[in-house]
């Protein structure tokens, strides 16, 4: 019982963090029909700076780290990404009145990863003083890309069966290229390379580090506004998408937390790393995943998968999953 009370007091404390309050503030503004808007180029710049900083920090740390440490968490990331898609696919298949492709596309987005959710989790972990390996964010593509590819392969296989032979071959290499070139991942990879090969510490500490939290709060505001304004799209599709978008992130995160805990026992993965892995799993792609899915499964309804991820999945991952996994870590890890 004490454990539960402890968990909930931790949980409530997390809700008051600046990150979450900006998210909720953004949603409230949009709900009230506020005319305030953050221009798209600013949003893109904010994402770029955040991801560049995350990558650079990771790169600097990988320089001194044993690469073998990354191996098990990276394998787990791939496994989790694939598992999320298979679970989601099986879930939607059991429901009446849902187009197969819509379910598969949604599961693909939830298997993929959100850079903004990841950044929010990193800031909250730092505020709590929970340490994590700086290379953990680099697990992002290991979960993101396999999930998107699997979803597209599954959807095309279904289409082939339905139309009797007429289906497209999935261009896996094309999807990998497309994902790596997306704005979020290319900023992170650029940062990783600069951190790894150059000596960016001075600019990292004097410019990128101090900007990080402030920029993240702007990003949260945008995500909150976007979440509210896309609810209308979600209303047009079956309610099951909203149910999945609410419950999915929590289950996906718990699976990853379990696997991360194994990595903690076996190879000394840090508690903060376990939380981040869980958050990466709980998150769903918001920036680059949707165009990839749109390109690979054009016959799926974008209102279903974008509505589910942007208006329910992302807020749940940030406002419920992050505090939940931080609280869980504070209880599980001594």
């Amino acid at each position, binding site marked *: 019982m004490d454990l539960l009370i402890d968990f909930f007091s931790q949980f409530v404390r997390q809700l008051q963090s600046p990150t979450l309050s900006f998210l909720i503030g953004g949603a409230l503004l949009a709900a009230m029909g506020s005319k305030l808007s953050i221009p798209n180029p600013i949003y893109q710049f904010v994402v770029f700076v955040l991801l560049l900083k995350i990558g650079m920090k990771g790169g600097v740390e990988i320089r001194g780290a044993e690469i073998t440490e990354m191996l098990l968490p990276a394998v787990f990331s791939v496994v989790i990404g694939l598992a999320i898609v298979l679970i989601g696919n099986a879930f939607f298949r059991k429901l009446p009145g849902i187009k197969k492709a819509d379910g598969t596309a949604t599961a693909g987005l939830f298997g993929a990863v959100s850079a903004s959710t990841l950044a929010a989790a990193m800031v909250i972990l730092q505020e709590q003083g929970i340490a994590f390996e700086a290379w953990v964010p680099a697990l992002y593509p290991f979960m993101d890309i396999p999930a998107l590819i699997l979803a597209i392969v599954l959807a095309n296989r279904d289409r082939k069966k339905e139309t009797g032979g007429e289906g497209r071959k999935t261009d896996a290499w094309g999807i990998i290229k497309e994902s790596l070139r997306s704005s979020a991942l290319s900023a992170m990879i650029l940062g990783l390379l600069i951190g790894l090969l150059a000596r960016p510490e001075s600019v990292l500490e004097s410019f990128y580090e101090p900007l990080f939290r402030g920029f993240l709060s702007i990003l949260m505001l945008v995500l909150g506004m976007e979440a509210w304004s896309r609810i209308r799209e979600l209303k047009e599709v079956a309610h099951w998408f909203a149910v999945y978008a609410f419950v999915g992130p929590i289950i996906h995160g718990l699976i990853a937390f379990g696997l991360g805990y194994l990595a903690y026992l076996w190879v000394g993965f840090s508690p903060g790393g376990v939380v981040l892995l869980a958050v990466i799993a709980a998150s769903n792609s918001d920036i680059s995943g949707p*165009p990839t899915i749109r390109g690979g499964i054009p016959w799926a309804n974008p209102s279903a998968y974008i509505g589910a991820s942007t208006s329910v999945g992302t807020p749940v991952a940030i406002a419920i999953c992050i505090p939940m996994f931080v609280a869980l870590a504070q209880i599980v890890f001594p």
Partner: protein
Amino acid sequence: MFHPATKLVIITEHFLEEKVCEIMESCGSRGYTVVPAGGKGLHHLHPMVDRATVVEGFDNIKMEVITHDEEQANQIAEKILEECFKDYPGIVYKESVHICRPERF
């Protein structure tokens, strides 16, 4: 000063831009114009906003290509219908226009 020509207009989703440009070029177009577009379609409103949209590539664009040869415009339209608009939403129409400096088309 003015010479008759045909203008083909395509309105569709942003991330089909590359594909449509490829088609136009493969049919021999030497140039085209692409501008952001917004409005109302069969299913919903496609607002043209400059606020942050988080999801990339789902905004709409309007593409215009001008050609001397109406047959070429027909060919481009046919290819776009075949290769893009079976799965994606979009609009294609052509207009008769009058152009200056015909050597540029």
